[in-house]
């Protein structure tokens, strides 16, 4: 059908294809000449940016999948192999890991853009719904991807989130077993999550296609929120917006590269580098920042729904019903406020009657529970997303853009702040005053959608709209953009929870900062300390002897070091295991045959493997250094258990390991004085290298990449300016 009014192409090959399958005509129509409002601000870059990150995630994901093993015994090791042995594996993994953070950040800004400029309103309701669907799919994908490294955070994150479904009445337990494929998060869970983590991105691609299709039917909204009236109001998508998007992409890629190359683990949690242990939950289990808001809403429902709370909620619900009815008539406020206040009072009474073990006030029949807090929390969390999906029907104000709706704009910005507060609360330990703050913030969240937005739809008087886009052209997006970036980084930085031991003092490390590299001599000395002291009890199983070439040893030296170790091999032709001298390709042998033997030999305490220890502990090398230098006589009155030792920086101050380093314990080959301080510093440097052997290479590459991207941004900016030179916007 499209063939009928097709313009022929000059290029004969393109023409041949296009006359049979008009893909080029389609591309030209949708991405070439597509009429786009001329007044987009930089907020409108975020759709294209989301697309870029989606593609980046799929590409890195597919290549990572080629080196990943979805099995409980292999998953963690295969991820470490990607980080250490696969060519550029560390780059792909860090791109994927940080790509998830950026994908969410970009999408959150994209959603907020939609709310601010009323992009969800008629005729774009379906476009909005498809967007929410993409967001839900993204959450599912991110969650399942998070489990794949099979770390402590993976396993316990998966346990907590899947357990949400146990709140479903009657079938909850069996539903959770269905999700797990067993009685806990285990190998079957990992396998299915991997399959689904691979599948979902392609579902997202499908829904994105529908999202873009719907967008191209209605056309884009714009900062003024008024429909383009003539061709004077629009520009062809290419080259105006393709080039503007490319400029925006280059700039965001600079920030992204900074994270990938210089702070790749700053948005993650150190427990993500500890293998999953089904018997021990980490003390602070916190989701990634992009889920914190919903996590806070889940945890805010600490109360069971007794008859007072339920009645209060019903009354408040009844009070707002008139908001939605007879939209042309004036509202009769007294009954609405009256019923609303009664509902609120009932709710508060029911709430207080449960506080402090019911000792504050006594309410008769308060023990009748209509719904548990657990189910309430899950419903509130689901409701938080559902409320956003209903936005096109909750807001029927004829004016789209918040630019002309000062009241809506005010409450929307409060809503944004509210979301940030929720995000911060989600990262806190569930104690007062954080609980009450998250409860109030949750209250505002729902009030915004179900009370404020419909109420404003009725009563807000908008400022006069310009008659056409061409007439009024302004841009002030940078300010709001900044708010978004600050909010995101604020949440990320607050995500690390407090610990009971004092913070380890920061040391000067050779590998600090963007230009820091591992000090070779310190690494070698640290290796000597490891070999002569730590190796008696601590393994280093992810390191091979061949890796020692990184420390500056020659191939012959590495072979000699390896030959000093005895390695178990076999079975031989007789079927027996035997020991032989080590080779360069062997991994460091573990001092114990297995964890049980290690525990047995150490009073029940397991000396952890040290190959990832710096990444697996909060504060990294500073922490290792602090532990090694933190031995002190126990203060008076401190109850020290038998066989334990006092350490200032160890959580709980009781550590099974006796002070490992004494002055002069190791005779350094280079003549450096082996004080405890010096040895701690050296061995921490060595272990930092063991955790992240490609760090020096990563930083070197990062500098090049960022310089390149800066250059590219300048070029793209110039191209954009040149193209836009004759356009008033």
């Amino acid at each position, binding site marked *: 059908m499209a063939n009928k009014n097709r313009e022929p192409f000059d290029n004969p090959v393109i023409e041949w294809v296009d006359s049979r399958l008009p893909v080029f005509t389609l591309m030209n129509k949708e991405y070439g000449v597509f009429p786009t409002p001329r007044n987009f601000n930089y907020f409108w870059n975020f759709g294209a940016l989301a697309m870029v990150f989606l593609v980046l995630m799929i590409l890195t994901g597919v290549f990572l999948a080629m080196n990943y093993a979805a099995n409980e015994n292999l998953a963690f090791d295969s991820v470490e192999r990607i980080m250490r042995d696969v060519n550029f594996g560390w780059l*792909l993994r860090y791109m994927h890991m940080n790509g998830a953070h950026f994908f969410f950040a970009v999408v959150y800004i994209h959603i907020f853009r939609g709310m601010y400029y009323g992009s969800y309103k008629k005729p774009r309701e379906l476009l909005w719904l498809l967007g929410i669907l993409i967001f839900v799919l993204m959450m599912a994908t991110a969650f399942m991807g998070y489990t794949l490294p099979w770390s402590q955070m993976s396993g316990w994150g998966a346990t907590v989130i899947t357990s949400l479904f146990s709140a479903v009445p009657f079938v909850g337990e069996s539903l959770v077993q269905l999700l797990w494929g067993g009685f806990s998060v285990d190998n079957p869970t990992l396998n299915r999550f991997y399959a689904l983590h691979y599948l979902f991105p392609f579902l997202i691609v499908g829904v994105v296609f529908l999202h873009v299709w719907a967008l191209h039917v209605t056309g884009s909204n714009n900062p003024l929120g008024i429909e383009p009236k003539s061709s004077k109001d629009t520009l062809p998508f290419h080259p105006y917006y393709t080039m503007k998007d490319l400029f925006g992409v280059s700039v965001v890629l600079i920030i992204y590269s900074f994270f990938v190359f210089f702070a790749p683990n700053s948005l993650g949690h150190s427990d993500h580098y500890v293998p999953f242990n089904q018997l021990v939950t980490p003390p602070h289990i916190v989701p990634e920042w992009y889920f914190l808001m919903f996590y806070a809403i889940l945890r805010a429902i600490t109360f069971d729904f007794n008859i007072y709370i339920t009645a209060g909620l019903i009354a408040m619900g009844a009070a707002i019903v008139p908001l939605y009815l007879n939209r042309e008539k004036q509202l009769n406020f007294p009954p609405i406020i009256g019923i609303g206040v009664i509902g609120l009072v009932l709710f508060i009474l029911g709430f207080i009657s449960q506080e402090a073990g019911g000792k504050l006030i006594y309410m008769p029949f308060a023990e009748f529970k209509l719904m548990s807090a657990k189910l309430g929390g899950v419903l509130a969390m689901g409701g938080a997303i559902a409320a956003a999906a209903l936005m096109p029907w909750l807001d029927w104000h004829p004016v789209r853009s918040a630019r002309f709706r000062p009241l809506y704009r005010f409450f929307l910005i409060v809503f944004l702040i509210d979301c940030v507060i929720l995000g911060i609360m989600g990262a806190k330990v569930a104690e007062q005053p954080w609980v009450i703050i998250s409860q109030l913030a949750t209250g505002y969240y729902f009030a915004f959608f179900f009370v404020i937005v419909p109420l404003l739809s009725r009563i807000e008087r908008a400022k006069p709209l310009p008659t056409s886009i061409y007439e009024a052209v302004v841009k002030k997006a940078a300010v709001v953009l900044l708010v978004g970036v600050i909010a995101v980084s604020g949440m990320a930085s607050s995500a690390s929870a407090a610990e009971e031991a004092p913070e380890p003092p920061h040391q000067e490390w050779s590998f600090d900062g963007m230009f820091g590299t591992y000090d070779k001599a310190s690494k070698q000395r640290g290796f000597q300390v490891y070999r002569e002291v730590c190796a008696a009890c601590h393994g280093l199983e992810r390191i091979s002897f061949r890796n020692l070439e990184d420390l500056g040893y020659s191939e012959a030296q590495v072979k000699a070091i390896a030959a000093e170790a005895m390695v178990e091999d076999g079975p031989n032709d007789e079927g027996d295991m035997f020991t032989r001298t080590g080779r360069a390709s062997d991994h460091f042998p573990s001092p114990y045959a297995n964890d049980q033997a290690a525990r047995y030999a150490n009073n029940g305490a397991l000396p952890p493997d040290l190959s990832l220890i710096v990444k697996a502990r909060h504060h990294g090398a500073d922490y290792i250094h602090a532990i090694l230098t933190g031995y002190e006589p126990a203060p008076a009155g401190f109850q020290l258990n038998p066989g334990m030792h006092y350490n200032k920086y160890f959580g709980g101050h009781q550590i099974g390991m006796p002070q490992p380093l004494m002055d002069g314990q190791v005779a350094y080959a280079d003549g450096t004085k082996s004080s405890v301080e010096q040895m701690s510093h050296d061995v921490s440097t060595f272990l930092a290298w063991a955790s992240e052997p490609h760090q020096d290479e990563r930083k070197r590459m990062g500098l090049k990449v960022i310089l390149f991207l800066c250059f590219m941004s300048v070029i793209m900016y110039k191209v954009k300016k040149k193209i836009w030179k004759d356009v008033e916007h």
Partner: protein
Amino acid sequence: MADETKPSKQQSKRDFLYLTAAATGAIGAASLGWAFIDTLNPAADTLALSSTEVNLTPIEEGQAITVMWRGKPVFVRRRTAQEIEKAENVDMSLLRDPATDDTRTQEGHREWLIVVGICTHLGCVPLGQKPSEVRGDYDGWFCPCHGSHYDTSGRIRKGPAPKNLLVPEYTFVSDSLVRIG
């Protein structure tokens, strides 16, 4: 004239800018693309595992064993005097891939023939390691997939395979221990 040159100058400046932009984008994409492709190459641990040691003591004359090296079978055969003689006295002009037996074995260890057990035709593993298996018309190996015959020096004599069985790099650590790779 001045009016005519001005726009063309601007034109060329713009072209240069666009070309630079396109080239920058292409360089960026290509560099990133290389990182992706390079992940498919053998990883550092794979490369490090490229040697294996074989104890020769239990192999009797006329017997052969198969060992795994880089995920492939390697045939280690202790040849009889008769087999060695047969391998040495072959007219080179009869061979598809001419090579003397001296170049395929090591001085002082002529009885040991070590070859990668992969048919050079399409990658099957030839028969002939066990006494019960057929060894083909030349007493070496016979590939069941498409009927290639190899002789007692692992050279192709008959059938579709183009090359002799590959001799891997190996060194004798001692008379009874050989390291392949």
